[in-house]
């Protein structure tokens, strides 16, 4: 028994990503077609060159036909994937394993979500018949419970906690303001963050991710074939996934200051990639900043900060665009919104751009230096106490 990973055995050779916006004028089909066509062009391949497809959507459609129909894929295996908010990442993981196994030469991943056709605010899950006893809180409320718990445990007073969360919100919007694909493209002031209407607990509007429609796509092949498609492939160093057993909801030892599923996922991912010191070796991270306190805790679970110290690193600017380890250089969920099936691939798209040196100058990271060559993407689904976690590590060169 072991988690061996597929370090340097698979490469991403093309990607596409739509703008993430409240896209009233485009259907899911439109978004999938646009993302896929961009990815085909990026890899320089045609539809027929791709042997198999994995399609991630949480609840915008059922089965592989939801992708095969708009793209008119003929006699191809198309698998629909769902794994909460990590759906897009999970789809890529499946496609990467498929080419690594040798079953296919070229596989495509498309993730998309049409969120804004419901008329409701936020992300709302399909009701599955149940006995009526399950909680029905918003994600904002579930994640807001981190704030008092973290402050209480580490002796961080309410005002300081507020400043930390405000810094995270401002940082991600600063980055998003430099990204034409982002939903929100304005820098925001501390006053705007702190005076915004409260949503849940102490979290205001600017502590929460936006809600947007979007799609993204990637084409993967075995690493040895990568240069047939591009001079600048991005290699998969690790793909790790943990599905929690929900024990945090029932076990009093869980204290809402960490996400154990993510901590375990990080250990596995770093082992797959041979990372000994994440803080020193990771050049950038795209993380699941669904809410500002989520990003705070992630810095510790991903081993970027010691326990109880991430709040200080945040305030010190360690994760700013020009910091030691830029986090969410593309603007994150905060700026992009969260079309569930697409978000994980949108994160990889940013890693793809930054590692290939294709990110626009105004948001290009300067942390890619000798000994610090990896990009990390982290995508979660669920709530504190009951979540799924995905982590990838990517690099521009093979070891």
């Amino acid at each position, binding site marked *: 028994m072991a988690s061996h990973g597929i370090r340097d055995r698979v490469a991403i050779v093309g990607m596409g990503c739509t703008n993430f916006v409240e896209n009233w004028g485009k259907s899911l089909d439109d978004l999938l077609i646009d993302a896929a066509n961009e990815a085909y062009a990026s890899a320089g391949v045609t539809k027929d060159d791709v042997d198999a497809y994995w399609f991630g959507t949480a609840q915008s459609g059922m089965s592989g036909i939801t992708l095969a129909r708009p793209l008119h894929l003929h006699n191809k295996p198309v698998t629909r994937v769902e794994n909460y908010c990590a759906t897009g990442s999970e789809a890529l993981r499946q496609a990467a394993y498929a080419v690594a196994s040798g079953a296919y030469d070229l596989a495509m991943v498309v993730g998309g979500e049409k969120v804004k056709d419901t008329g*409701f605010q936020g992300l*709302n899950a399909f009701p599955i018949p149940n006995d009526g*006893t399950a909680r029905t809180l918003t994600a904002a*409320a*579930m994640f807001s419970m981190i704030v008092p*718990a973290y402050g209480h445990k580490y002796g961080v007073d309410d005002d300081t906690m507020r400043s930390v969360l405000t810094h995270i919100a401002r940082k991600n919007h600063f980055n998003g303001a430099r990204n034409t694909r982002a939903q929100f493209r304005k820098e925001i002031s501390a006053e705007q963050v702190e005076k915004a209407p409260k949503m849940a607990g102490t979290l205001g509007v600017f502590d929460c991710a936006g809600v947007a429609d979007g799609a993204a796509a990637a084409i993967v092949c075995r690493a040895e074939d990568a240069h047939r498609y591009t001079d600048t492939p991005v290699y998969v160093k690790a793909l790790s996934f943990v599905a929690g057993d929900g024990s945090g909801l029932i076990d009093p030892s869980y204290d809402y200051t960490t996400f154990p599923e993510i901590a375990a996922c990080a250990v596995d991912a770093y082992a797959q990639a041979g990372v000994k010191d994440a803080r020193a070796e990771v050049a950038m991270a795209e993380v699941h900043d669904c809410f500002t306190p989520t990003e705070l805790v992630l810095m510790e679970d991903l081993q970027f900060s010691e326990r109880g110290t991430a709040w200080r690193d945040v305030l010190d600017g360690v994760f700013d665009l020009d910091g030691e380890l830029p986090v969410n250089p593309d603007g994150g969920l905060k700026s992009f919104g969260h079309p569930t099936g697409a978000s994980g691939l949108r994160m990889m798209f940013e890693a793809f751009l930054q590692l290939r040196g294709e990110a626009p100058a105004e948001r290009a990271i300067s942390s890619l230096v000798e000994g610090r060559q990896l990009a990390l993407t982290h995508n979660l689904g669920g709530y504190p106490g009951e979540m799924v976690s995905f982590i990838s590590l990517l690099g521009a060169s093979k070891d």
Partner: protein
Amino acid sequence: MRGIVSWGAYLPYRRLDRSHITAFLGQGGGRGTRTVASYDEDTTTMGVEAARLALTATDATPELVVFGTVAPAYADKTNATSVHAALRLPDAVPALDLGASVRSVVGGLRLALAGGATSLVVSADLRTGLAGSADEAAGGDAAAALVVGEGEGVVAEHLGGASVTEEFLDRWRQPGEVRSKVWDDKFSELTYVGLGRQAFKEALAATGLAPGDVTTVAVAAPTARIGKALAGKLGVEKVAGDLTDTVGATGAAQPGLLLASMLEDAEPGQVLALVVLADGAEVLLFRTTPALASFTPARPVAAQLAAGAPLTYNRFLSWRGMIQLEPPRRPEPARPSGTAAARNVEWKFGFVGSRDTTDGMVFLPPSRVSIDGERTDDMEPAPMADVQGTIATFTVDRMAYSPSPPIIFAVVDFDGGGRLPIELTDTDLEEVEIGGRVEMTFRKLFTADGIHNYFWKGKLIRG
């Protein structure tokens, strides 16, 4: 010897100051306060709370449950079965609804006293009327539960009584209507005073007592005025307070509530008379026993009276459906699954988790597999409804659907093991803190497709 073995009265936490009605509407209202059932309470949930208190105070086990209210949560479907399930009574214990009138409740008590079974008589009412009406201001919400039985545990022996039945139009409503109408207050008063005097006289004759032998009389009447008019004419020195100044006229709950209150003020060896005016008159006479001295009510009426918190009139109106507030723009919850609820009735209604018989871990909801994943079906039931807990962390959700947003929500760690993230009710946000203590209460989460979604919530333990 047969009589009352135990009692439990339940007053909802919220109180409406009647002067706020006048200030808001320019009509209606009055002096004092009335109790208000929360948006997540109905007659069934209040009945459960009263019954829990009654059963906490005694070792007696009911062999029969009857439930009466003027405002039943369901028609066609039995409401007493929900009470029965929440109390986790054996399925061989019948649970029956009485008719939807005040008279049926005192009739149920009469039948229980005349019968042979240890009986749990549960009554609850949710009284309202149109905005600015007399019933809206004068009414009150409450529940009462009486355990009737035999033997040494009897705290008030039933001596007998009398009944007078009369067909006349005092008040009426069609099933499903939110309000009752009244024909003529003076007509009602004169009719009831006559009926009450007749029944009281016949009850004394039947038991060989004189008015002076009765220590205290309590009169449950449709209005305070009618009750007072009769009470002054019965020749009994002490008239028990009718609670209308603070609680209101509680309809079907009033007979049980007044009897409970009277018992809490009584000494052993006293004769107590309960007079109920409802489409006739019922008189029940009791003599308290030495066992009363050692009986401790689980939560006395006086303590609950002292414990309430104010509710604004506009919130009252929205809870009663008199004004509709704009809801959060979120989907309303889907109806609960009848089959899933049936499978999980011990959890949903009884709040029973499971306890690992090897390592003692408590699972809420119950689990078949141990936390390490190693063992299956190595569990025993863990009843948690009466277990208290501590808040580990908490939040307020201003966006999620609720019949009365926002939702206050806490992660509760139960004494002796078990954790559940759960909604808090009867709680104001500023009261909530990490380390705060919580007890469980049976509530209605929402209603969808006509199905009342009953489950448990936490509420703060104060003081």
